[in-house]
């Protein structure tokens, strides 16, 4: 049992930190521009595909550096030439725009790379077990994933709280008009934040691609979970996003690792139902089975009981 617990924790950590890399960019964009960027996970996918193509000729490490940069530039361009144009039509228009962008990116990936899964591999140098516990290996690459995401978190936190630009960004999140009145170029900040946010998503794609399979549906799998994290964490709160990411990563991982379900609960209560009971599906449901929908359940509960999210300060 202990081994399952330890590995579930490690797995949850890897997933949670990966989700955080996406959520951190999204929460910055969301809280600053009020845009729910539906295409955020698509930039994650773009990162994986660019890194795959680069790794074919130049190896994994160059892909790790260049792919996020390309994605970031693309993201900044989407903000500059697309979103900004749509901005004057209101939030719904912006949102619908990112919705369309997500759609277009997925189709473009199918157009350029084809619909089949890509053989994007982790570098050979990390192809060894970091440690073996109870006969199960924990690959060095996963350790590397934890390392990178932790590093990103620390750097991001330092920059936002201790640098001049970080303080301007923080101010722009809560008081965009005041910041503009102080003479800062708010559109440029927006573009920069969008670029950095999408580059982070791209980086997440680069390191996730080899483990989570690089295929055109990889964005859709993550897409809405990232929103859930941003909202649960609280708008504009990086720390909240961090906590929510880990919470959801661990929650799903533990739920899958567990082997309890309704039958156990019913046994405990001493209730039993016939197999042909109309709600039989409900009485036989197990926790691993519903693991993927737990985040959404959590989302609805949080929004009902604490609409500002865990660490959020304002509502809109």
């Amino acid at each position, binding site marked *: 049992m202990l081994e399952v617990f330890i590995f579930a924790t490690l797995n949850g950590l890897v997933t949670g930190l990966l989700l955080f890399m996406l959520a951190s960019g999204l929460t910055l964009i969301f809280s600053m521009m009020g845009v*729910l960027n539906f295409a955020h996970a698509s930039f994650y996918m773009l990162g994986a595909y660019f890194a795959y193509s680069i790794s074919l000729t130049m190896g994994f490490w160059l892909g790790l550096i260049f792919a996020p940069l390309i994605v970031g530039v693309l993201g900044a361009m989407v903000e500059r030439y*697309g979103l900004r*144009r*749509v901005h*004057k*039509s209101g939030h*719904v*228009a912006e*949102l*619908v*725009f990112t*919705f*369309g*962008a997500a*759609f*277009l990116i997925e*189709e*473009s990936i*199918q*157009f350029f790379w084809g619909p089949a899964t890509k053989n994007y591999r982790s570098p050979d140098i990390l192809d060894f077990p970091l440690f073996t516990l109870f006969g199960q290996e924990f690959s060095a690459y996963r350790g590397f994933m934890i390392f990178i995401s932790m590093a990103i978190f620390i750097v991001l936190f330092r920059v936002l709280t201790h640098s001049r630009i970080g303080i301007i960004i923080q101010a722009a999140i809560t008081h965009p008009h005041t910041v503009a009145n102080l003479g800062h170029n708010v559109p440029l900040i927006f573009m920069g934040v969008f670029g950095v946010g999408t580059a982070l998503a791209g980086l997440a794609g680069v390191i996730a691609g080899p483990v989570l399979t690089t295929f055109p549906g990889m964005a859709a799998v993550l897409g*809405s979970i990232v*929103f*859930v994290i941003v*909202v649960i964490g609280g*708008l504009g709160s990086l720390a909240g996003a961090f906590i929510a990411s880990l919470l959801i990563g661990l929650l799903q991982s533990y739920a899958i690792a567990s082997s309890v379900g309704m039958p156990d609960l019913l046994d405990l209560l001493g209730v039993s139902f016939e197999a042909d009971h*109309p709600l*039989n*599906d*409900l009485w036989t*449901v197990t926790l691993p*089975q*519903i693991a*993927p*929908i737990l985040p*959404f*359940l959590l*989302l*609805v509960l949080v*929004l*009902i009981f604490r*609409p500002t999210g865990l660490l959020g300060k304002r*509502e*809109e």
Partner: protein
Amino acid sequence: MMASIAKLSLWAGYLLVLLALPQFFDSILSISIFNQMAIAIIFALSYNMLLGQGGMLSFGHAVYFGLGGFLAVHTLILIENGSVYFSIIFIPLVGGIFGLLAAIFIGSFSTRKAGTVFAMISLGIGELIAASSLIFVSFFGGEAGVSGDRTFGPLFFGVDFAQDLEIYYLAAIWVFIATVFMYLFTQTPAGRMANAVRDNPERAEFIGYSARRVRFISFCASGLFAGIAGGLFALNYEFITEENLNAATSGRVLLMAYIGGLGYFIGPIIGAVVLTLMNSLLSNYSELWLLYLGVLFLLTVMFLPRGFAGLIMMHQVAWLRGTLRRLALPYLITGIPAFIFILASIAMIELSHTDGEVFHYLGVSLERGSSIDWMLIGGIAIAAFLATRKSLQQLKDAWEDANTLPGDEDS
């Protein structure tokens, strides 16, 4: 008086078009497309009650459509078993009632707040129900969904509704009824207040209306009509699956309403018709049709923020002033090179994607390996693009000319 006669004749015309359509297009395919349109129109209009009129952005509107549809199919099964006995023409109402019940339950907590909170709750609920639908197989039927036969009910004036055409006439009547009621809703105090709450909830509260209550009423009405659309879907296809209540369907209805034009009552109808047509016709011609759809969609959002309905309405002034004719030539001058540019771009995209060496396009054979072919199409595309750009100024001038009053010109 004149205005109401004009309005009545507009409605009569709408009904006439609905009923006369099969006279002109009577293939099984076109009937099938019309049925799809009918369902999409009700669904998109009901969505507009939320977003366009009530300012509530929902990512889970398919829930009410789908739940209504599932209940409708289960009712068909009951009719087939002989457990209940009534004519299937009321099936959409069954779907509507269930959509309403679901909306009352979910709306009781989700309409407390508007804006992002509402949007995210709708997303969460949508995902929850879509995921549960795959787990609770006995009601939702898993991947394959549930299926019921529509021909077992009592005959309706000798009609057993075995053919899609018969369903079309039924759907046309339902579309008409639903459209009328949704239009009337916008004229009721509740509908008017929905607009007020959308624009300024605080002020609405000050004059004594509970914003939450107003949202709740719009939400329930919207759920009712979405359920009716779901019921029609069930009747038309005689089955329903989880994909009819998942996020993709919710996304599609958002697109329809948005592309059509949120600000206008007629907008979602246009959106529903255009998107259904594209969905069923474009996919015949190219595997890449989703790519084109994505491009079209982005361009619409960027350049036509008020949708197709907005584009049409832009011409109202020129129409009333009788200056519409002045726009015809400039439109042509811009339109023709723009069209050529689009055709050439499509040629390049398709050519780069074709499997064979040769690609047949508009009566021309293009060779993939031939650089001359590439340069030729590329040249045409660039020339057409430049010509379009150049003519834009002229179009702009003509537009201003057609839309300014003679006295305004100097000012």
